[in-house]
Protein backbone atom coordinates (compact mmCIF):
# COMPACT_ATOMS: atom_id res chain seq x y z
CA UNK A 1 0.00 0.00 0.00
CA UNK A 2 1.14 3.49 -0.61
CA UNK A 3 2.27 5.56 2.28
CA UNK A 4 -0.53 7.62 3.68
CA UNK A 5 -0.12 10.99 5.24
CA UNK A 6 -2.33 12.17 8.07
CA UNK A 7 -2.72 15.28 10.12
CA UNK A 8 -3.89 14.73 13.64
CA UNK A 9 -4.89 17.62 15.82
CA UNK A 10 -6.15 17.24 19.31
CA UNK A 11 -7.11 19.71 21.98
CA UNK A 12 -6.52 19.17 25.66
CA UNK A 13 -7.98 20.97 28.59
CA UNK A 14 -6.06 24.18 29.17
CA UNK A 15 -5.34 23.20 32.74
CA UNK A 16 -3.49 20.05 31.78
CA UNK A 17 0.11 19.98 32.95
CA UNK A 18 2.83 19.81 30.35
CA UNK A 19 4.04 16.32 31.34
CA UNK A 20 0.68 14.81 30.80
CA UNK A 21 0.51 16.16 27.30
CA UNK A 22 3.96 14.77 26.61
CA UNK A 23 2.78 11.46 27.97
CA UNK A 24 -0.17 11.43 25.61
CA UNK A 25 2.07 12.22 22.68
CA UNK A 26 4.43 9.42 23.67
CA UNK A 27 1.55 6.99 23.92
CA UNK A 28 0.47 7.94 20.46
CA UNK A 29 3.97 7.53 19.12
CA UNK A 30 4.27 4.07 20.63
CA UNK A 31 0.93 3.04 19.26
CA UNK A 32 1.91 4.38 15.88
CA UNK A 33 5.18 2.48 15.72
CA UNK A 34 3.43 -0.71 16.77
CA UNK A 35 0.96 -0.48 13.93
CA UNK A 36 3.40 0.39 11.23
CA UNK A 37 3.26 4.13 11.40
CA UNK A 38 5.60 6.94 12.11
CA UNK A 39 5.14 10.29 13.67
CA UNK A 40 6.82 12.85 11.52
CA UNK A 41 6.25 16.05 13.35
CA UNK A 42 4.88 17.14 16.69
CA UNK A 43 3.89 20.73 17.23
CA UNK A 44 2.46 22.10 20.38
CA UNK A 45 0.57 25.22 19.60
CA UNK A 46 -0.07 25.99 23.20
CA UNK A 47 -3.14 27.41 24.76
CA UNK A 48 -5.36 29.06 22.24
CA UNK A 49 -8.74 30.59 22.31
CA UNK A 50 -11.29 28.32 20.68
CA UNK A 51 -13.98 29.59 18.38
CA UNK A 52 -16.73 28.01 20.45
CA UNK A 53 -17.11 26.31 23.76
CA UNK A 54 -15.97 22.73 23.97
CA UNK A 55 -16.52 20.86 27.21
CA UNK A 56 -17.51 24.18 28.75
CA UNK A 57 -14.05 25.60 28.09
CA UNK A 58 -13.17 28.67 26.10
CA UNK A 59 -9.51 27.84 25.63
CA UNK A 60 -7.63 24.69 24.86
CA UNK A 61 -4.16 23.36 24.46
CA UNK A 62 -3.65 22.47 20.82
CA UNK A 63 -1.27 19.75 19.70
CA UNK A 64 -0.57 18.90 16.10
CA UNK A 65 0.92 15.67 14.77
CA UNK A 66 1.88 14.71 11.28
CA UNK A 67 1.80 10.97 10.69
CA UNK A 68 2.96 8.63 8.02
CA UNK A 69 1.36 5.24 7.92
CA UNK A 70 0.90 2.29 5.67
CA UNK A 71 -2.15 0.97 7.44
CA UNK A 72 -5.43 2.71 7.80
CA UNK A 73 -6.30 0.87 10.98
CA UNK A 74 -3.69 2.86 12.84
CA UNK A 75 -5.93 5.89 12.88
CA UNK A 76 -8.73 3.99 14.50
CA UNK A 77 -6.37 2.89 17.22
CA UNK A 78 -5.04 6.38 17.84
CA UNK A 79 -8.47 7.89 17.96
CA UNK A 80 -9.61 5.25 20.37
CA UNK A 81 -6.80 6.20 22.70
CA UNK A 82 -7.61 9.85 22.43
CA UNK A 83 -11.25 9.20 23.07
CA UNK A 84 -10.45 7.27 26.20
CA UNK A 85 -8.11 9.89 27.55
CA UNK A 86 -9.72 12.34 29.90
CA UNK A 87 -7.59 15.32 29.12
CA UNK A 88 -8.35 15.34 25.40
CA UNK A 89 -11.56 17.16 24.62
CA UNK A 90 -11.49 17.20 20.84
CA UNK A 91 -9.55 15.53 18.08
CA UNK A 92 -9.58 15.44 14.32
CA UNK A 93 -7.68 13.41 11.75
CA UNK A 94 -7.34 14.51 8.18
CA UNK A 95 -5.99 12.37 5.42
CA UNK A 96 -3.73 14.43 3.25
CA UNK A 97 -1.81 12.21 0.89
CA UNK A 98 -4.18 12.60 -2.03
CA UNK A 99 -4.14 16.33 -1.67
CA UNK A 100 -0.39 16.50 -1.43
CA UNK A 101 -0.14 14.32 -4.50
CA UNK A 102 -2.47 16.62 -6.36
CA UNK A 103 -0.54 19.65 -5.22
CA UNK A 104 2.72 18.16 -6.41
CA UNK A 105 1.18 17.30 -9.73
CA UNK A 106 0.01 20.89 -10.17
CA UNK A 107 3.42 22.24 -9.30
CA UNK A 108 5.05 19.81 -11.71
CA UNK A 109 2.61 20.78 -14.46
CA UNK A 110 3.26 24.41 -13.96
CA UNK A 111 7.02 24.04 -13.95
CA UNK A 112 6.89 21.87 -17.00
CA UNK A 113 4.80 24.38 -18.86
CA UNK A 114 7.01 27.25 -17.81
CA UNK A 115 10.04 25.38 -18.99
CA UNK A 116 8.54 24.58 -22.33
CA UNK A 117 7.49 28.04 -23.35
CA UNK A 118 10.87 29.78 -23.62
CA UNK A 119 12.28 26.67 -25.26
CA UNK A 120 9.57 26.44 -27.86
CA UNK A 121 11.60 28.34 -30.44
CA UNK A 122 14.81 26.51 -29.76
CA UNK A 123 13.93 22.85 -29.67
CA UNK A 124 10.71 21.46 -31.04
CA UNK A 125 10.07 18.31 -29.01
CA UNK A 126 10.24 18.91 -25.32
CA UNK A 127 11.92 16.48 -22.97
CA UNK A 128 9.38 13.82 -22.20
CA UNK A 129 8.49 14.52 -18.61
CA UNK A 130 5.14 12.83 -18.79
CA UNK A 131 2.50 11.76 -21.24
CA UNK A 132 -0.22 14.10 -20.03
CA UNK A 133 1.46 17.50 -20.40
CA UNK A 134 2.14 16.80 -24.05
CA UNK A 135 -1.43 17.44 -25.06
CA UNK A 136 -1.63 20.61 -23.02
CA UNK A 137 1.51 22.11 -24.39
CA UNK A 138 0.50 21.35 -27.94
CA UNK A 139 -2.51 23.59 -27.65
CA UNK A 140 -0.69 26.48 -25.95
Amino acid at each position, binding site marked *: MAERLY*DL*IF*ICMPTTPEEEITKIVNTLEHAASEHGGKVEKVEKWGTRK*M*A*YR*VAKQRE*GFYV*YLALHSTQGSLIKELERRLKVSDAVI*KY*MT*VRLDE*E*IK*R*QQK*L*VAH*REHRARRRPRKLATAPAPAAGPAPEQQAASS
Partner: protein
Amino acid sequence: MSEQQPATPRPSGPSGGPREGRPPGPGGGGPPRRGKRQYFRKKKVCRFCVEKVDFIDYKKVEMLQPFVQERGKILPRRMTGTCSKHQRWLGVAVKRARNIALLPFATEL
Protein backbone atom coordinates in the same frame (compact mmCIF):
# COMPACT_ATOMS: atom_id res chain seq x y z
CA MET B 1 -36.35 76.10 -18.59
CA SER B 2 -33.27 74.10 -18.90
CA GLU B 3 -33.57 70.92 -20.69
CA GLN B 4 -32.50 68.17 -18.58
CA GLN B 5 -31.66 65.31 -20.65
CA PRO B 6 -29.32 62.96 -19.05
CA ALA B 7 -27.97 61.37 -22.12
CA THR B 8 -25.74 59.10 -20.19
CA PRO B 9 -26.92 55.57 -20.71
CA ARG B 10 -27.56 53.69 -17.59
CA PRO B 11 -24.85 51.14 -16.97
CA SER B 12 -26.71 47.96 -17.38
CA GLY B 13 -25.15 45.37 -15.21
CA PRO B 14 -22.24 43.36 -16.40
CA SER B 15 -21.63 45.00 -19.73
CA GLY B 16 -18.10 45.18 -20.79
CA GLY B 17 -15.44 42.98 -22.13
CA PRO B 18 -14.24 39.62 -20.99
CA ARG B 19 -13.52 39.44 -17.35
CA GLU B 20 -10.37 37.86 -16.19
CA GLY B 21 -10.65 34.56 -14.56
CA ARG B 22 -14.41 34.64 -14.40
CA PRO B 23 -16.63 32.65 -16.69
CA PRO B 24 -19.95 34.33 -17.59
CA GLY B 25 -21.75 34.12 -14.32
CA PRO B 26 -25.38 34.67 -13.39
CA GLY B 27 -25.26 38.32 -14.34
CA GLY B 28 -26.29 37.83 -17.91
CA GLY B 29 -30.01 37.54 -17.79
CA GLY B 30 -32.70 38.24 -15.31
CA PRO B 31 -34.00 41.52 -14.02
CA PRO B 32 -31.63 43.43 -11.78
CA ARG B 33 -32.51 43.07 -8.18
CA ARG B 34 -33.29 46.45 -6.73
CA GLY B 35 -32.88 47.24 -3.16
CA LYS B 36 -30.65 44.34 -2.34
CA ARG B 37 -27.41 45.17 -3.97
CA GLN B 38 -25.95 45.86 -7.32
CA TYR B 39 -24.86 43.16 -9.48
CA PHE B 40 -21.20 42.49 -10.12
CA ARG B 41 -19.65 45.63 -8.94
CA LYS B 42 -16.07 45.33 -9.94
CA LYS B 43 -13.94 42.95 -11.76
CA LYS B 44 -12.40 40.65 -9.23
CA VAL B 45 -9.63 38.24 -9.73
CA CYS B 46 -9.28 35.04 -7.82
CA ARG B 47 -6.71 35.71 -5.16
CA PHE B 48 -5.56 32.13 -5.05
CA CYS B 49 -5.02 31.93 -8.76
CA VAL B 50 -2.92 35.04 -8.67
CA GLU B 51 -0.77 33.79 -5.84
CA LYS B 52 -0.71 30.32 -7.33
CA VAL B 53 -1.70 28.63 -4.12
CA ASP B 54 -1.93 24.88 -4.46
CA PHE B 55 -3.20 23.90 -1.11
CA ILE B 56 -5.49 25.87 1.11
CA ASP B 57 -4.40 24.90 4.58
CA TYR B 58 -7.19 24.68 7.11
CA LYS B 59 -4.72 25.37 9.87
CA LYS B 60 -3.96 28.86 8.64
CA VAL B 61 -6.81 30.85 10.00
CA GLU B 62 -5.46 34.18 8.70
CA MET B 63 -5.70 32.89 5.18
CA LEU B 64 -9.29 31.77 5.66
CA GLN B 65 -10.54 34.74 7.65
CA PRO B 66 -11.12 37.14 4.73
CA PHE B 67 -13.45 34.62 3.15
CA VAL B 68 -15.67 34.20 6.14
CA GLN B 69 -18.29 36.64 7.40
CA GLU B 70 -18.37 37.96 10.91
CA ARG B 71 -21.21 35.64 11.66
CA GLY B 72 -19.09 32.71 10.58
CA LYS B 73 -20.75 32.09 7.24
CA ILE B 74 -18.66 31.43 4.16
CA LEU B 75 -18.82 34.29 1.69
CA PRO B 76 -20.23 33.49 -1.72
CA ARG B 77 -17.97 33.43 -4.70
CA ARG B 78 -19.41 36.49 -6.30
CA MET B 79 -18.40 38.55 -3.30
CA THR B 80 -14.84 37.40 -3.09
CA GLY B 81 -14.14 36.79 -6.75
CA THR B 82 -12.70 33.35 -6.16
CA CYS B 83 -12.75 30.83 -8.95
CA SER B 84 -14.87 27.73 -8.60
CA LYS B 85 -12.04 25.33 -7.97
CA HIS B 86 -10.60 27.40 -5.16
CA GLN B 87 -14.00 28.09 -3.72
CA ARG B 88 -14.53 24.38 -3.32
CA TRP B 89 -11.17 23.93 -1.63
CA LEU B 90 -11.90 26.91 0.54
CA GLY B 91 -15.18 25.38 1.66
CA VAL B 92 -13.46 22.18 2.61
CA ALA B 93 -10.77 24.03 4.52
CA VAL B 94 -13.25 26.22 6.39
CA LYS B 95 -15.33 23.23 7.39
CA ARG B 96 -12.26 21.42 8.68
CA ALA B 97 -11.22 24.49 10.63
CA ARG B 98 -14.68 24.74 12.11
CA ASN B 99 -14.53 21.17 13.28
CA ILE B 100 -11.36 21.80 15.19
CA ALA B 101 -12.65 25.04 16.72
CA LEU B 102 -10.34 27.32 14.79
CA LEU B 103 -13.29 29.00 13.17
CA PRO B 104 -16.78 29.34 14.56
CA PHE B 105 -19.79 27.58 13.16
CA ALA B 106 -22.02 30.53 13.92
CA THR B 107 -21.69 33.55 16.11
CA GLU B 108 -24.55 35.60 17.38
CA LEU B 109 -24.62 39.15 16.22
